[in-house]
């Protein structure tokens, strides 16, 4: 980063967070009260469709451009984020069926559109489109804040390649935005929750389900003492809100065919209208039990209006819902974890508003798992805003840093750290059995330090602290077969209920794998407590200190690391 940057830095940096999605984008900042808030553009939209449209050389953006998908689809560019920084042969043009089609232009992707008042069509590369889109976002933010925004933290999917990152940074620079950092979408979502003032730092395993408009990405994130590590990701590039829209479209089309014997999907414009209105209907169904769809001149000049209720919609979309939940289960499996291990499921992205998806997910996970979606948790943050908020939090953190500083901090030499493979904890031997209480969870980035206080037997005395490595086991117990109730012979649905098998009871059981150290604390007062501090070095060396709470002396010991 040359001199130009230095000058920009001098002109006071003002950074925002941007979530740049395939379907829609959001901008967010940290308000003076320290809360992350998403900024509405001049039209009042907080989720700004990532669409640009040109009529007679005039540029339309966001919702206005989206409306142009019906009349002016050839000059409307949509769903272009995933094409950025990619070669033409490796892109999937499917989402662009109803808008300007991507085309090959040298080694990159371009759209052939009329973006000037003249009749000639120009090849506009995807980078250029991105620049224009980001410029509009920057403009909206600057207008709202009354101050020139010149820097940003942008969220990207976890599978964004280096080439894509470079292309995005270059495009942002062209648009007048200095990209401080690109951060992964799922981590931004976790951070948006962790940045709330009431949040506490805890060790937890989080599944982030980012259900977008055209694609869905799910990741398992280990949050350990405020540090985040992605353990596994899964993507479905064809599953998203659009798949649900398709259900609505098919439903109404069939109704329409029944009445008028014309398939509105066969007509390009009819399909575009259905898509636009169907999406609105689908969104309305997430909030209310009934929703209407009314389209003027849908096909063959017939005006169409109908309602659909949520039950019908959920019945029809069952298959798609299963795909969502399967993806979530798949990622948990990929991380070599069990649903019992997951402490939180964060729903992010527009399709997460659908109540049924959160409901079905809740059924997969144990009751202790927190499902953070609007329909299952009243304190949940709007899923559509999560990535932008996370980006804004990070932007406020790194705003003051020199570029050099940030770059060095995100260098793999810093980010690549050893992680514990097994949990470390303290073993309790009572007369009946041996139990293990984890203190440092597995997948904790090293170095790490944890402190815990343990109570002592009522009468006090000498105690033993046995520090061990532990593993968790899933204990499966068959439930006691219920005593069969005597049923009257004429009970018509008796064989139905008999078929239902009771599910196994599954629970987590910790087991001691390997003892690491033993320490003795002598003469603990009655009712006293013992504080254990474990510090693990990156080379797997350990320092352990144990002392009685309030006591003067501590028992210390160190174990040399092997690596």
């Amino acid at each position, binding site marked *: 980063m040359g001199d130009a940057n230095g000058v920009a830095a001098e002109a006071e940096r003002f950074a925002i967070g941007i979530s740049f999605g395939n379907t829609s984008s959001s901008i967010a900042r940290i308000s003076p009260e320290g809360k992350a808030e998403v900024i509405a553009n001049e039209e009042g939209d907080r989720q700004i469709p990532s669409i640009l449209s040109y009529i007679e050389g005039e540029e339309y953006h966001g919702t206005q451009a989206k409306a142009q998908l019906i009349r002016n689809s050839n000059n409307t560019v949509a769903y272009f984020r995933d094409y950025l920084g990619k070669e033409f042969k490796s892109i999937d043009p499917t989402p662009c069926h109803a808008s300007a089609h991507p085309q090959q232009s040298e080694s990159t992707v371009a759209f052939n559109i009329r973006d000037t008042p003249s009749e000639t069509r120009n090849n506009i590369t995807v980078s250029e489109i991105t620049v224009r889109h980001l410029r509009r976002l920057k403009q909206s933010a600057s207008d709202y804040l009354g101050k020139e925004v010149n820097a940003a933290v942008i969220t990207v999917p976890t599978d964004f390649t280096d080439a894509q990152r470079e292309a995005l940074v270059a495009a942002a620079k062209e648009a007048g935005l200095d990209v401080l950092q690109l951060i992964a979408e799922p981590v931004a979502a976790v951070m948006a929750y962790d940045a709330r003032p009431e949040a506490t730092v805890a060790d937890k395993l989080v599944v982030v389900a980012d259900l977008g408009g055209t694609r869905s990405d799910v990741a398992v994130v280990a949050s350990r003492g405020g540090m985040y590590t992605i353990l596994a990701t899964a993507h479905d590039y064809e599953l998203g809100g659009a798949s649900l829209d398709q259900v609505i479209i098919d439903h109404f089309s069939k109704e329409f065919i029944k009445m008028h014997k014309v398939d509105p999907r066969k007509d390009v414009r009819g399909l575009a209208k259905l898509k636009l209105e169907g999406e609105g209907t689908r969104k309305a169904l997430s909030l209310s039990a009934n929703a209407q769809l009314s389209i003027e001149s849908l096909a063959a000049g017939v005006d169409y209006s109908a309602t659909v209720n949520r039950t019908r919609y959920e019945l029809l979309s069952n298959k798609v819902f299963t795909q969502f939940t399967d993806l979530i289960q798949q990622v948990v499996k990929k991380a070599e974890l069990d649903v019992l291990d997951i402490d939180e499921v964060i729903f992010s992205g527009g399709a997460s508003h659908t109540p049924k998806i959160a409901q079905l997910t809740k059924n997969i996970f144990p009751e202790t798992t927190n499902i953070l979606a609007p329909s299952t948790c009243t304190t949940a943050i709007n899923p559509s805003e999560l990535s932008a908020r996370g980006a804004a939090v990070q932007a406020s953190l790194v705003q003051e840093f020199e570029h050099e500083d940030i770059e060095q901090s995100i260098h793999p030499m810093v980010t690549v750290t050893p992680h514990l493979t097994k949990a470390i904890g303290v073993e309790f031997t009572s007369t009946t059995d041996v139990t293990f209480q984890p203190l440092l969870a597995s997948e904790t980035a090293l170095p790490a330090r944890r402190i815990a206080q*343990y109570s002592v037997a009522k009468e006090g005395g000498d105690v033993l602290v046995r520090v061990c490595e532990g593993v968790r086991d899933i204990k499966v117990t068959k439930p006691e077969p219920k005593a069969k109730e005597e049923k009257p012979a004429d009970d018509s649905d008796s064989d139905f209920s008999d078929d239902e098998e009771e599910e196994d009871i599954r629970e987590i059981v910790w087991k001691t794998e390997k003892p690491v150290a033993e320490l003795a604390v002598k003469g603990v007062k009655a009712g006293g407590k013992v504080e254990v501090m474990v510090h693990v070095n990156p080379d797997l060396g350990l320092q352990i200190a144990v002392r009685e709470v309030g006591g003067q002396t501590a028992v210390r010991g160190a*174990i040399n*690391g092997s690596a």
Partner: protein
Amino acid sequence: MASVQVVNVSLPSLPSGWSADKDFKAVGALSGATQRNVEPVGPHFLAHARRKRHHRTFSEDERLQAQQNVKKTEEEEDDDISEDEDPMMLNREAKDWKSQDHYAVLGLTRYRWRATPEQIKRAHRKKVLRHHPDKKAASGQRDENDSFFKCIQIATELLLDPARRRQFDSVDEAAEVDAPSKKQASGSKFYKAWGATFEAEGRFSLKQPVPQFGDENSTQEHVENFYNFWYNFDSWRTFEYLDEDVPDDGESRDQKRHTEKKNANARRKRKNEDVARLRTLVDEVLAQDERIKKFRQQARAGKDAKRKAKEDEAIRLKEEKERKKAEEEEAKKNAEETAKAEREKNKKAKEAAKNAAKKNKRVLKGSVKDVNYFADGEASAKQVDSVLTDVDLIMGKIDVDELAALAEKLTIAGKDGGAVKAAYTAEAKRLVDAGKLKDGEVKVFA
């Protein structure tokens, strides 16, 4: 990070005999660590970065090294789904979808019914990236023929729907492994050849996992289990895929019903044929299976051994009985002999005692005779008679031992009349005292 958790579980008390230098004992080391990428966001990361960076400089080399060791969370594109495409296939028409090999269209012929939904999705994506109509336009083909793309979409849609996929799998001839001929399945190839056939047939099973065919070393239980499974085979195979199209114009309802009926019949017929086919197949392999023969032989051998053991046991029992009987007889004989000897011995002793008594009696009688019946000169008949009466009386009243003692005394007394009389008198007095004689009964020795 340094926040304190409070755990309300009591620590165990120190076991007696536990001691260590400075109360600390290292027992083990941690097992290894995984290299992972920490996401460079959040305040805690920045603190971490600050700490870590203080004594580090970075070079490109270190960066690459660090990246290489990281455990991957994003999977690489795997190439196991790419297969050559048959040019004939590329020219297929989408409307002939029923006759197309959906797995071949997606390049999954290696997996077929084993392909997971994820694999199908990945394969679909790969094919879409290559065959999307927009790609064709870019490479200069202007024919706007997107039929193969439609084929891909149809194949994916069908294979991702579990019900429809089963329908197709049911009639997927390419996935079938024909039953081997006798020649193909001869000798050592038998198990491999039939194993493959049954593995392919097993895909229709509602019960999973399907037991393996096994090899010549399989246990009897395994083999029996295998045949039981196949004789009770529960199949999901359906033949809807081969249905004739039902006219859907809503006008010729009769025609529609007729076709539906025909289809239902055809399905049932095919299903029955399939069940019968499988049955014959299992019969055939059962007839050829060397293991069954082996087990039968083993069973027969086992039975023979059992019978022999039974017979041996019977003989043994018989012998035992005889031996016992002989022993009993022997014992009886011995006992009899001992008893006889005892009797004889007793008899002898009795006789001896009798003789002794006779002898003593003779001594008694002789002693009075020797002293001339206590008479001076010739004893009168009366005197003799009275003396002998008393002697007889005494002799009758005393027992054998007393008789012997008296006889001894008398022998010592010899021919001394006074001593003999005194001995008799003493004896008579003793007998009177013992109450055996009445006072005055004896006259001479009173």
